[in-house]
């Protein structure tokens, strides 16, 4: 690890100053930043530890909106029983992520900015990685192992998968991210936060250097109550998704009035499956229409060697998640 300067500001203003002056990385729980520093992928000259900004902790369920402080811990939010009842997708996607130890340390603002687990990105022994070294190529696409890579949103430069779970719930429910940066305070639609790799996979979000996530808000809609996060993974805990789906529905009798579908473990960014949602709106939700929605969600998917399974698996996961959401909409579990 490269030596670095450590800043531990007590106010947001000091944090912004320290980030601007040092050009350093923002440190919260550190589960991504410190990890990447240890393996030599990130070598910031400075770290600005914002965990002293205790105002950014906590979360509240309001009548119109649920607010999450950027420094709320994953484990604390996942265990809030009021939230479990009000918006199960927001808690299920947290407690199915990572391990208990990581959830105790990791903060929500950092969680949404989690970096990819692409092994070629994470191992500096590979000369080719456009995300790590722009213009160097892509070892994954150059005959590499791609069974864990994205089938949606990839480009000829990069197919690295966005690894997170919670982000799928946020994008499905039109969350907003509130930040403070050199240009002042701004609000970003969560769907606009992450950028597809295109020709610049090194640029993953629209955040500026030194811009700090302050809080995340999720509008309260009826479909939140009948929501679900279904995650298929190769072991029961502490595994990244092979495919996952964050869904929610609002029924009007048997007819779907509102439906939300987002996909995890299959795309380069948090991924809203809008066409699949459209296919269900105004229609009855049955196993057949749920399966069709799953199929539509992956209509644009491009398989890589070894990743064809994600397309079939992802479609089934969407359908299975929708059936659980339907059961919840009808008062079941």
């Amino acid at each position: 690890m490269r030596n670095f300067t450590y800043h531990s500001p007590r106010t947001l203003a000091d944090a912004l100053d320290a980030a601007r002056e040092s050009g350093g990385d923002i440190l919260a729980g550190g589960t991504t930043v410190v990890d990447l520093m240890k393996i030599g992928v990130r070598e910031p000259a400075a770290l600005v530890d914002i965990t002293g900004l205790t105002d950014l902790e906590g979360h509240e369920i309001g009548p119109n909106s649920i607010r999450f402080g950027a420094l709320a811990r994953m484990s604390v939010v996942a265990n809030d029983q009021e939230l479990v009842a009000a918006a199960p997708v927001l808690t299920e996607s947290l407690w199915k992520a990572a391990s208990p130890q990581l959830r105790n340390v990791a903060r929500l603002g950092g969680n949404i900015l989690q970096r990819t687990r692409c092994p070629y990105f994470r191992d500096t022994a590979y000369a080719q990685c456009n995300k790590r070294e722009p213009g160097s190529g892509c070892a994954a696409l150059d005959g590499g192992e791609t069974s864990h890579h994205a089938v949606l949103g990839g480009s000829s430069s990069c197919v690295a998968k966005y690894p997170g779970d919670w982000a799928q719930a946020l994008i499905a429910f039109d969350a907003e991210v509130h930040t403070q940066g050199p240009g002042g305070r701004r609000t970003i639609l969560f769907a606009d936060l992450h950028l597809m790799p295109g020709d610049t996979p090194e640029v993953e979000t629209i955040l500026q250097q030194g811009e700090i996530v302050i809080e995340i808000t999720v509008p309260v809609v009826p479909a939140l109550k009948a929501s679900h996060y279904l995650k298929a993974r190769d072991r029961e805990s502490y595994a990244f998704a092979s495919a996952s789906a964050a869904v929610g529905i609002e029924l009007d009798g048997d007819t779907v009035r509102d439906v939300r579908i987002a996909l995890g473990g299959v795309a380069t960014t948090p991924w809203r499956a809008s066409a699949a949602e459209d296919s269900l709106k105004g229609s009855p939700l049955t196993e057949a229409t749920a399966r069709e929605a799953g199929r539509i969600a992956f209509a644009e998917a491009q398989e890589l060697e070894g990743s064809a399974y994600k397309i079939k698996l992802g479609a089934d996961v969407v359908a299975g998640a929708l059936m659980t959401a339907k059961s919840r909409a009808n008062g079941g579990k």
Partner: protein
Amino acid sequence: MAQTINTAVTRTDAPRKVTGTATYAADFMPAGMLHGALATSSVAVGTLTGMDISKAEAEPGVLAVFTRETLPDYKSVKGFYAGGPGSASFWPMNESQLRSYSAGPGSASFWPMEDARIRYAGQPIAYVVAETAAAARRGAQLIEATYDIAESTIAMDPADSFVIGAGDDSDGMVITKGDVAEGLSVATQIVDSEYVTPFQHHNPMEMFSATAEWRGDRLTVWMPSQSVKTLRSGIAKAYDMSETSVRVISPFVGGAFGSKAGVTPYTMLTIAAAKAMGAPVRLIVTRPQMYTVATFRPESVQRFRIGADAAGKLTAFEHIEISQTSQFDAVVNPGTHITRAMYACPNIHTEQRLSRSDTNSGGFMRAPNEMQTFFGLESAMDELAIKLGMDPVELRRVNDTDRHPVADVPFSSRSLMESYDAVADSFGWANRTPEVGSMTDGDWLVGYGCATATYPTNILASNARVRMHSTGEAYIELAAHDVGTGTYTIMAQIAAARLGLPVEACDVVMGEGDMPVAPLAGGSTTAASAGSAVHDACLKIGRQIAAQVSAMSEGPLSGVDPAAITLENGVLKASGGQSQPLIEALASTATGQIEVIGEFRHKAMTDQMIKTTFQGGYGSAGPVTPEMAMFAFGAEMVEVRVHRWTHEIRVPRLHGAFAAGTILNRKTAHSQLMGGMIWGIGSALHEVTEIDTPRARFLNTNIAEYLIPVNADVREIRVEMLDERDDYVNPLGVKGIGELGIVGTAAAIANAVYHATGKRLRHLPIRTSDMV
């Protein structure tokens, strides 16, 4: 005194482990210690054309950067690994094998950093020494190497394989009995299938480390080791030193599983760096580097052709195992000599083949090689049972045998079907409906599967020092190892039972090269072999004290013929009925204490086997001796569930019944078997070292992405240990259980997956991606 053998005794070292006072190798930090770090090759095959070490040298805290040009002493040393598992002398072999083995299991037949040639990705190319571990690692990161890159391939090509050795029956690599073609021609049903197992790495929780300190010509090495004798003799030979000048210390080992069995490149580099620096150096290998600086489980292909008549009796049995090895070593863990011992059959052919690719050398990994071979064998048996329309348990019953099918000697004990019957009872096998997909529960498809487990009983020469004091304490010392399995406890139990002392009064000291010879902690040898040496020492104490007290003018045994006195549970008993507690008899002697060396030598051990073991090698007399075949047996049954929507595979229940002779400690034995079964779940469903084909590198070199079971994957595990008596294997009747638990699990799970879904998976691991 309470019976201490075959009871559940809590580990004597448990308080030290949970309070952090158990000293593992890296906990020893000699004064003035410096820190080492490895820089490794980023390419697999080629030539190192240059190395810029200026940035590394400029890093604050870095004291030295050693390259192949600058590491002193190093290249003058000859005979790397001689006497260790890298040498021909490690395995007893005939001459044709000697010629074929360029080195031996778990070795490297070249020196790391001896030349500019790069043979595999992750090969050490430089060694950085610094004031802190952080500075050393940073220094290693800053080294910039350039290479001429040559073509490389990491996956073996099974079509390009070879037999090492003579290629006939003389060395066991190829065995033919009867005529397989003829056996197949009379078969009613034939299974002709190939089963593939992946590269796997041990990933012990305790990182690899080595600490070396020179004092003049004397060297001390602290390193977690499954074989301190191997380590000592290998280092001594490499440095042309006497073994008595080399101290090797490894009192506790935080998981090994085969990965800490040998002398390794990082050991030798650390010793050389310590010599060059004139100061002790400690290296702790990073997790990614652990994938390439020691050994791993090589990938394999298991080919089976098995024929059976309408009643299910085998008419032909052919097993060809192709196992991966490096370009420079011929590492073979023979697996076919176990599969051919399983079932009665008149026509048998087995071949042990190797195929080379560009990796470091593989080695042993729990259980070598039964995890791989029994995934194949027991999947094939399940396929055969389905073709025959037989219950899979009945197919094993029909083919059970009390004689070794090739060696034609009796089994010293064989409780295979007793194991099946016991596990079938506890599991509820009778509730299984044979039709595929016939058992469901909500969104879950349910399947039941079973498989045979076995492990050869390896017995090796061992010594042990036991000293007993009339104050009621005993000191037991031997160069055995506790790799987390409970060896400290069982050695104390054996002494306590024989000497009539409480377990806690028996102080066991192990894990140093200077102690009395005990075998490598591998191949399930320690309890049977080292334990028998402790047992022998205690009986010797009894005989010597009996001789002394019988010669005394007074006392209960005065004047009794010492040959008529035996030691039973701490009491000297004469055939005439007189008796005296051993501790009392000892107190009446002049010294009040006695020290002896116990020995375990089995009548089937040749002098060469004993010598091999004493030189740090593996001179096992098992599993087949001229008169007996020695194996532990078991059977496993599993319930698997496959989810309709997520296609996830889960294991709610895994039951096993095992018969392995005397069980010394019912608690630690239960843990060992359960641990093996859990590892079996991992092998079946989780574990694989993924590979990057174009650049011939191991890919998922961390334990976030190298999946092993977590607690949530392990639900009901039931372990039953059957009573079994075996008077042949050793005086304690112990067969060894370290490896047995894992052997049947993967096949049982694959068979259950088939039963649930109709999908026959002939590769490991079986993943969600296989289920869609």
